[in-house]
């Protein structure tokens, strides 16, 4: 296994410890619950926004805690939803008179942990509402009853509700905004290589030199189809077709376009993909009003990419443009 790791069982806590040491003034780390929270949270005048999920998707979500983004993240182990206790304790610690917003990606484990944690926290007097993110078009709702997965689109939900809550929005308003962003956001991902979870020490699946996996999620779970490796343009075109036709995004639409690296893809390649996607959207009469190129929601060291579109309106344009300060804002 070619990784920077000490004891694989300490992978997540050591990462969190590093984040905490790098951000002593702005973040607080609670080791018992894998909890990274804003040092100034909870605040009486603001809904606390919490996202949990498995680890291995960094910067999501522990590195996007900060002003205008999350108030706290409680990650589980690599690719495992956090234990219910973490959700409970995090919710209690972040409790404010304005309530707590849970953001979760639509996976069985996450939903269970947050359902149970919420029930117990509510019993202790915490007001909680939940927004579920499920933007992945690779999974068809109808066939598999667990529904679509939440993938890189969660960034836009976080950004929008994070901005709105800084501006004083209440819990209901945040749920409205979060649900709205989710409803106009679609993503599709693909992988050139598998990823290697530190505790497993070997790749989750094997891909031949001339193969790629279309429709992968962010947990190294294989995609829906294995295909012959194609060039950058063909890959973008396939992802774009799947995403555009799903909502659908139409001629005249103004969109945010995200080209998200899955962890092992250099940013040079992401810009090659961006250029193609931007031009193909222009050819369809769709304008890219905002763009995001980089790593937002990864799958450990997987070489791969996901493409996300968000249909913009005036409200979203202004929320996405709002300032944000996060742990990985390093320049």
């Amino acid at each position, binding site marked *: 296994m070619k990784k920077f790791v000490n004891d694989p069982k300490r992978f997540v806590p050591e990462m969190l410890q590093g984040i905490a040491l790098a951000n002593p003034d702005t973040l607080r780390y609670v080791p018992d619950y894998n909890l990274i929270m804003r040092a100034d949270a909870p605040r009486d005048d603001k809904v606390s926004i919490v996202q949990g999920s498995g680890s291995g998707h960094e910067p999501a979500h522990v590195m996007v805690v900060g002003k205008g983004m999350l108030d706290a993240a409680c990650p589980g182990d690599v*690719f495992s939803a956090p234990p219910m206790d973490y959700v409970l304790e995090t919710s209690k610690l972040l409790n404010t008179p304005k309530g707590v917003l849970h953001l979760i990606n639509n*996976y*069985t484990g996450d939903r269970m942990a947050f359902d149970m944690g919420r029930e117990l926290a509510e019993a202790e007097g915490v007001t909680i509402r939940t927004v579920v993110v499920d933007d992945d078009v690779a999974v068809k709702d109808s066939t598999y009853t667990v529904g679509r997965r939440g993938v890189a689109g969660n960034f836009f939900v976080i950004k929008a509700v994070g901005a709105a809550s800084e501006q004083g929005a209440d819990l209901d308003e945040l749920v409205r905004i979060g649900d709205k962003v989710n409803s106009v956001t679609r993503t599709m991902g693909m992988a050139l290589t598998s990823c290697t979870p530190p505790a497993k020490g070997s790749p989750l699946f094997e891909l031949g030199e001339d193969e790629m996996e279309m429709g992968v999620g962010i947990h190294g779970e294989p995609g829906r189809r294995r295909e012959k490796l194609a060039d950058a343009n063909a890959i973008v075109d396939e992802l774009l077709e799947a995403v555009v036709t799903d909502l659908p995004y139409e001629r005249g639409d103004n969109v945010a376009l995200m080209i998200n690296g899955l962890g092992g893809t250099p940013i040079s390649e992401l810009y090659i993909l961006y250029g193609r996607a931007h031009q193909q959207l222009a050819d369809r009469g769709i304008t890219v009003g905002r763009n995001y190129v980089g790593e937002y929601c990864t799958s450990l060291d997987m070489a791969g990419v996901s493409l996300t579109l968000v249909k913009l309106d005036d409200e979203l344009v202004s929320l996405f443009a709002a300032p944000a300060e996060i742990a990985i804002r390093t320049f």
Partner: protein
Amino acid sequence: MDESFAAVEYVVHTIARTAVDNETYFGDLDAVVGDGDFGYSMARGFEIVLAGWDDIDRSDVGTFLKKIALTITGRIGGTSGPIWGTAFLRAGSVAGDRTAVTADDAVAMLRAAIEGIKARGQSDVGDKTLLDALVPAVDRLAAELAAGADGQRALDAAAMTARERAEATRELIAKRGRAAYTGERSIGTLDAGAVAVAVMAERVAGGWADHATPHTSSEEAP
């Protein structure tokens, strides 16, 4: 302590031991079409159960099982924490303040555990989950006991059923868990949770004859 409390301890201890011993195997099974964390999650949770084994509150069987459930939900993430935690919790609720457990009690506790898993997982037999091994195995156990079999024979039969049905998950399409996203591609692969149930059942049956021997954590040190 009643001998049948020791039997409960034995079963739980064997489950925990199996989870810890098979971390890699269970993880590899989950990696095929899932995300590979099943072995790791189970091992991390059940090793804490084993580490604190001697100190678990044994006032009654219900308390004992609920304490274990709390350790599981407190430490195991993913789908498995809530699923297995709920199972232990529900079994504990049925056991209540009993300090001895009859064969009928055991079947009732297992049935309650199953109902808990179904409710928590919104899942049922046929979804390619651990239920596909657990439900028929418990049915078989109950049937054998009802037909007058002794514990050993009933457990052997249940273990055999668990193994057969775990193998048969190959034919199913995953409808729950991370494996569900691969759709038809999950056909031909084993469900990790179902195999874990089969291995646990086999180890419970295999050691049943000696189960009266007390299981202490000191015995576990390598």
